[in-house]
């Protein structure tokens, strides 16, 4: 049956902010859903609190609600918009949970709206472990032996039957949150205790351990006529025990015979039928015992998942798009395969290449976090690579991570080191595969490594072959074309070959080009070339035949931002996608290069051509070469994908590539401190006093000269990596030792730290002549908190119109002084009415999507047009920019950062400290938009952390420096009727100002003689509704840490800055007086 005529409008639920386990893959899937629905003439209503998504661009829906994804808000939207149906299977666990809540509240039946894609019963059968286990049994499958537990007593009793090690899995959490493997009782108590708390149903599953088994995932799709296809099989290189999101994964499965694969396939089909996923996609995970093939069904996700995005990119089969079509009535055979045009979607993609996905971690951001990989997902992003062999794909994937440590190298390894490597690899950590490779290079056998890691011998053999190839490359004597070709065939980069041959990457490249050893580009076509492909989705390989077709239209190459990481995430992909859309609309061919499978930019529908390639100089130069052979290339845009492409700009230019927009020289002018200082000087702009030190002694003398506290950091970094505020010589010395290890080639910057300043972020466009100011955002947290982690408000609420003018003038001066052609982001600080320039980034910033949403001006699109020579005045007349003036806000918009504290634990199992600082740690962001600050702040908090309490008990503990400024908000809470608790020092201070707090014992004071509870005990008892705890400097005290970690684990809102404290008063005041309003972005911008 084709389109269901009863569906005229659909509410799509998005996935909210980017968090670990739920990232921009759901923007990819949601964007596809919106596109499909609109193309069918269906009215699309969308809710998503994440402004950095393409799906929330006003043109992707008829009514876009950037609102917190709560049942209350969704109900309001349903009342107002009256959708015929709700589609919740493309927005991750967040959307699915929201849909279940709507069902349980009776909202859906009350307003006659039906859930499409999956029904609540099916979701329950898929996600409830006991029901799912029954289904597995019914279809003749096997589950791991397990027990469902709701209390610690049940847990301890169950483990007596199951034995250690035992796997703990909380129900209804995403990305394996709260799950882990316990080897003894203390570990069990800790992991399972947290699991009980994280699970919305206080339910955990204890399970027999199948650690070390082979792990597989199958992506399955079903339509309402019961046609079922397997889109992709994915094999985890890391055996059972490491969360699949943290594993290196390979598609298709490499080490199964057909007999075994078909067993998994049959089970998958039976399971999706029995669970009753009526239409759409799901993924099912399996463990296979390598000794006898015994299959255990692990779990299923009855929705589009992270793996679905990976499978879509890996196969060219767009799962989300097809799931949406199935949800509105189509069957698989009625849907055309976009790539072949002639064959239907009711088939199973077959691959003639190998796909490898590698995770990207951020442990360096959480120094005390446990680096062991377990069943709780910890990675923040991933890179995918495609090759015509496993080794080619693996080597490309590893260099896509942009981490030196990830790339295989071949140093001499001593026997002692070898022993250490073998013992280290027994515990999975970020660089285990590199340990494996080095150990094998040093002579370890496949058997030894298999015994230590349980990694399938086939993969180990592949690593061995790579090492053997390295040995051949390193042999003295002539480097023949045959050997070079073989090395490239195995995925070796020019840099790797160079280092093995004791020469430079450039030497190898020029030799390679002289010998005409260049990659060809093959097409991802879903069918292993059985049918002609019409979608130019390419990957490189050192093979014979090139499939890149000729072009006549001028093309612009856009470099993406690579794997998501803290500091460089979806916001940059957003800008790249915008550039591609704008340039395609303007008649150019756009060519996207990126290696992040989660993104919209790597959707083959986004650009005219897509190259799934690492963002290294070598790989990018080869694509440029191939495209230059294919037709006219105008140049490359490097300013939109964040630091990754920006870092390539100079080298690309040196290789004769045209950089569009801001030149590499201008980039250097802004990024190189000395040069930038001169620009400021010439323009008579102030910067905080600073110095550049290349030795520790020098740093100390600069710091003493400027006066502590100072902000220290290495140059050329993104996301504040390695940035710290230090208060004395000792901590400075400590920092220098660590920081200089991070980037040995770059000096350390020492800045005066503006203690009580307001920080301002500006995004602007400059065309060499005219400035367009996108927006002036004011940080809510004070200076010292990284801009990426700070909440901010647009328009700025405290600065005067004179200051606004001053900021505009300064922005224009910097843009022109640096020579920007396109976007620039500047951070200012205002202290004692003096404007300081903190830094300027001549590129798209993290806030571009937020500003674009708040003002209705697509800054990145305009920047792309400026890159190809359009002026701001032309863009004004084209309607891409307002006809006159700067970006204007509609309502008050607040951006709030989302932090991953609950994902990380120390090795002792306790939480990591949840303090904001100059180093960025947030993974994502939300936006609240409303007529007043109080309401928009409240929305931002609800969307990022959960509801703010309207009444109850607030606990306040202020550092000495914050006590004075904490009085006003404390009074505010008293006036709102909150009971105030405080630790002794804070309580005494508050009393001197007329407040009447109750004193509560610190954690370190222990329980009192009469059983008086400590604050942590009260929090654990659920007696505290809100925590205000401002930390003292860095190096947090034990008490503060105990309070903040307890808050995170108990999901109690915890505010760590005075500014946040004040904002909370306004937010709660609003919530007490009224309910949250809703308004679509389209109406805001109208």
């Amino acid at each position, binding site marked *: 049956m084709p389109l269901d005529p009863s569906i005229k409008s659909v509410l799509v639920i998005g996935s909210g902010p980017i968090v670990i386990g739920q990232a921009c893959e759901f923007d990819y899937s949601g964007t596809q859903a919106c596109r499909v629905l609109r193309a069918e003439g269906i009215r699309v209503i969308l809710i998503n609190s994440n402004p950095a998504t393409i799906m929330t661009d006003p043109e992707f829906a008829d009514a876009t609600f950037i609102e917190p994804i709560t049942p209350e808000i969704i109900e309001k939207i349903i009342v107002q918009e009256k959708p015929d149906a709700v589609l919740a299977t493309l927005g991750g666990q967040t959307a699915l949970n929201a849909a279940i809540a709507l069902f349980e509240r009776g909202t859906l039946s009350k307003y006659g709206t039906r859930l499409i894609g999956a029904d609540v019963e099916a979701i329950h059968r898929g996600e409830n472990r006991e029901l799912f286990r029954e289904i597995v049994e019914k279809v003749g499958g096997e589950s791991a032996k397990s027990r469902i537990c709701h209390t610690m007593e049940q847990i301890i009793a169950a483990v007596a039957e199951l034995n250690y090690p035992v796997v703990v899995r909380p129900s209804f959490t995403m990305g394996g949150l709260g799950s882990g493997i316990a080897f003894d009782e203390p570990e069990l108590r800790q992991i399972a205790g947290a699991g009980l708390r994280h699970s919305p149903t206080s339910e955990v599953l204890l399970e027999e351990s199948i650690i070390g088994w082979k792990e597989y995932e199958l992506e399955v799709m079903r339509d309402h*006529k*019961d*046609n079922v*296809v*397997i889109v992709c*099989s994915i094999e985890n290189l890391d055996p059972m025990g490491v969360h699949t999101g943290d594993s290196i994964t390979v598609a*298709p*499965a*490499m*080490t*199964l*015979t*057909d*007999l075994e*694969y*078909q067993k998994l*396939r*049959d089970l998958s089909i039976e399971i999706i039928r029995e669970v009753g996923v009526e239409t759409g996609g799901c993924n099912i995970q399996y463990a296979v015992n*390598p*000794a*006898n*093939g015994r299959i255990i069904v692990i779990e299923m996700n009855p929705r589009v998942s992270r793996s679905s995005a990976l499978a879509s990119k890996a196969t060219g089969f767009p799962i989300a798009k097809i799931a949406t079509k199935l949800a509105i009535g189509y*069957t*698989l*055979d009625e849907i055309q395969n976009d790539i072949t045009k*002639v*064959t*239907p979607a*009711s*088939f*199973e*993609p*077959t*691959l*003639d*290449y*190998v796909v490898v996905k590698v995770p990207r971690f951020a442990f360096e951001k959480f120094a005390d976090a446990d680096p062991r990989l377990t069943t709780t997902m910890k990675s923040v992003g991933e890179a995918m690579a495609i090759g*015509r*062999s*496993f080794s080619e794909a693996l080597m490309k994937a590893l260099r896509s991570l942009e981490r030196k440590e990830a790339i295989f190298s071949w140093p001499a390894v001593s026997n002692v080191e070898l022993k250490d490597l073998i013992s280290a690899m027994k515990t999975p950590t970020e660089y285990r595969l590199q340990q494996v490779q080095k150990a094998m290079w040093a002579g370890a056998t*496949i058997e030894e490594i298999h015994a230590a890691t349980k990694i*399938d*011998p*086939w993969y180990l*053999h592949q690593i061995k072959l790579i090492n053997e190839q390295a040995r051949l490359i390193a042999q003295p004597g002539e480097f023949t074309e045959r050997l070079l070709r073989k090395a490239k065939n195995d995925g070796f980069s020019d840099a790797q070959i160079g280092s093995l041959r004791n020469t430079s990457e450039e030497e190898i490249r020029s030799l390679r080009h002289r010998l005409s050893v260049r990659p060809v580009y*093959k097409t991802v076509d879903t*069918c*292993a*070339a*059985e*049918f*002609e492909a019409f979608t130019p989705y390419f990957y490189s390989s050192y*093979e*014979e*035949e090139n499939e890149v077709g000729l072009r006549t239209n001028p093309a612009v190459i856009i470099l993406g931002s690579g794997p998501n990481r803290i500091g460089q995430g979806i916001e940059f992909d957003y800008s790249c996608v915008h550039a591609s859309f704008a340039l395609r609309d303007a008649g150019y061919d756009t060519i996207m290069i990126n290696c992040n499978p989660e993104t919209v930019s790597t959707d083959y529908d986004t650009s005219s051509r897509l190259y799934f390639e690492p963002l290294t100089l070598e790989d990018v130069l080869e694509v440029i070469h191939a495209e230059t052979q294919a037709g006219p290339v105008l140049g490359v845009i490097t300013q939109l994908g964040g630091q990754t492409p920006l870092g390539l700009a100079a080298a690309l230019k040196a290789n004769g590539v045209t950089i569009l927009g801001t030149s590499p020289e201008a980039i250097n002018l802004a990024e190189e401190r000395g040069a930038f200082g001169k620009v400021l000087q010439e323009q008579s702009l102030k910067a905080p006093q600073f110095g550049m030190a290349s030795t520790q002694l020098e740093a100390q003398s600069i710091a003493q000269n400027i006066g502590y506290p100072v902000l220290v950091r290495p140059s050329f970094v993104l996301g504040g990596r390695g940035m710290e505020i230090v208060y004395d010589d000792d901590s400075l010395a400590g920092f220098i030792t660590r920081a200089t290890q991070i980037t040995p080639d770059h000096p350390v910057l020492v800045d005066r730290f503006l203690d009580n300043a307001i920080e301002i972020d500006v995004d602007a466009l400059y065309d060499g002549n005219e400035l367009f100011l996108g927006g002036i955002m004011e940080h809510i947290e004070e200076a010292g908190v990284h801009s990426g982690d700070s909440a901010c408000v647009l328009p700025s609420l405290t600065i005067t119109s004179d200051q606004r003018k001053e900021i505009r003038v300064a922005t224009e001066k910097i843009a022109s002084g640096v020579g920007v052609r396109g976007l620039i982001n500047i951070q200012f600080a205002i202290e004692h009415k003096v404007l300081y320039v903190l830094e300027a980034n001549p590129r798209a910033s993290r806030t571009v999507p937020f500003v674009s949403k708040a003002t209705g001006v697509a800054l990145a699109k305009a920047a792309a047009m400026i890159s190809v020579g359009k002026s701001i005045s032309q863009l004004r007349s084209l309607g891409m920019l307002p006809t006159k003036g700067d970006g204007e806000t509609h309502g008050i918009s607040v951006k709030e950062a989302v932090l991953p504290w609950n994902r990380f634990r120390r090795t002792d199992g306790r939480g990591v400290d949840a303090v904001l600082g100059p180093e960025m740690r947030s993974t994502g962001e939300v936006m609240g938009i409303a007529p007043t600050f109080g309401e928009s702040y409240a929305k931002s908090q609800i969307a990022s952390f959960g509801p703010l309490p309207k009444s109850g008990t607030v606990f306040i503990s202020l550092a000495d420096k914050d006590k004075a400024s904490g009085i006003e908000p404390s009074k505010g809470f008293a006036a709102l009727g909150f009971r105030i608790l405080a630790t002794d020092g804070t309580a005494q201070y508050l009393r001197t100002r007329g407040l009447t707090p109750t004193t509560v014992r610190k954690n370190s004071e222990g329980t009192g003689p009469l059983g008086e509870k400590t604050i942590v005990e009260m929090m654990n008892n659920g007696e505290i509704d809100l925590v205000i705890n401002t930390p003292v400097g860095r190096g947090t005290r034990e008490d503060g840490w105990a309070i903040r970690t307890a808050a995170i684990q108990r999901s109690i809102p915890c505010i760590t800055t005075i500014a946040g404290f004040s904002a909370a008063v306004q937010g709660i005041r609003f919530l007490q007086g009224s309910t949250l309003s809703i308004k679509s972005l389209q109406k805001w911008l109208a």
Partner: protein
Amino acid sequence: MTNAYLVFDDGRIFEGQSWAATGKTFGEAVFQTGMTGYQETLTDPSYRKQIVIMTAPHIGNTGVNKEDNESEKIWVAGFVVRNPSSLSSNWRSYQSLESELIEQEVIGIQGVDTRAITRHIRDRGAMRVGIFSDLNLSREEMVVEVRKIPAMAGSNLVEDVSTKKSYIVEPIGAKRFVIAALDLGIKKATPKALAERGVQVHVLPFNSTVEQILSIKPDGVFLSNGPGDPSTMGDVVETVRALLLEEIPIFGICFGHQILGRALGFETYKLAFGHRGINQPVMDKVSGKVEITAHNHGFAVQAPIDMEFSTVYGRGEVTHFCLNDGVVEGLALLERPAFSVQYHPEAAAGPHDAAYLFDRFVELMMKSKQVIA
């Protein structure tokens, strides 16, 4: 490892390295798109006189085991892979694929751009091809040799692969039916699938006479898959026509389907490059559902898809067709108990979506028995 060449009759040559046995070998070039199941492919008699190009780049990862062979030997004329694995990783594996190929003197080639080869076949259609390794021949000499071999169209290969003596595959559990399976190149998975349904399978040589077939008092007759051009099978077609008159339930697959088609009076024709893979979508016209199926056919039956047809055995219809290209994939008579599919319900390698067809055969035999009773 020495240089090896894959030489097409149109003069295109791909250079790679020798693998498995060396020397020279010839056949029809066909590509196989399955990502699993190389062992089943190699031992499928339908690949007689064909050089198989695997589109999946890594082949041999799981080695070779004792259970997954589809016949007693490897039948492919040559094997073309990109990256053969020298290490076998599977608990059932007893030796590496290369060792197995060398033991059975199967010539291979590795390190060639298999995707380019596949595109070449797709664009030019089926061609003759040769693998040359370890030989001192000029390019011209190789092409000349390839052009000497006969084309697949018009080839009668069934005699090469069919059993010389009949044998019996016993049912698993109680014996419910007895059938005669005409071995045109039968795969082991077929009698096994029938045996699992309580069928005793008498596998008979392809040239068995009607009398020989009837002598076992079969409840049904099965026409197996097999290699070559169905138009060369005049005698077998006549046998099937005689069986149709007997009203014995008949089930044919692949080559057997083409034989039934010819027996009904349809022509068979050679496809440009055939269907060989385990991901082919087939529409069941009766249920309106799609099956993902295993295919291995270079020929097809020419029959009207959109309407019933009439034959000397009564009315009939096309029951299945391929969604990729509209090729006829299933036939059934409406007034007599005979049906066939162009694909492989026994899978091996491939998905099990079409296994219900064996049940359908069993039902047909059941009904037929009831009628007689």
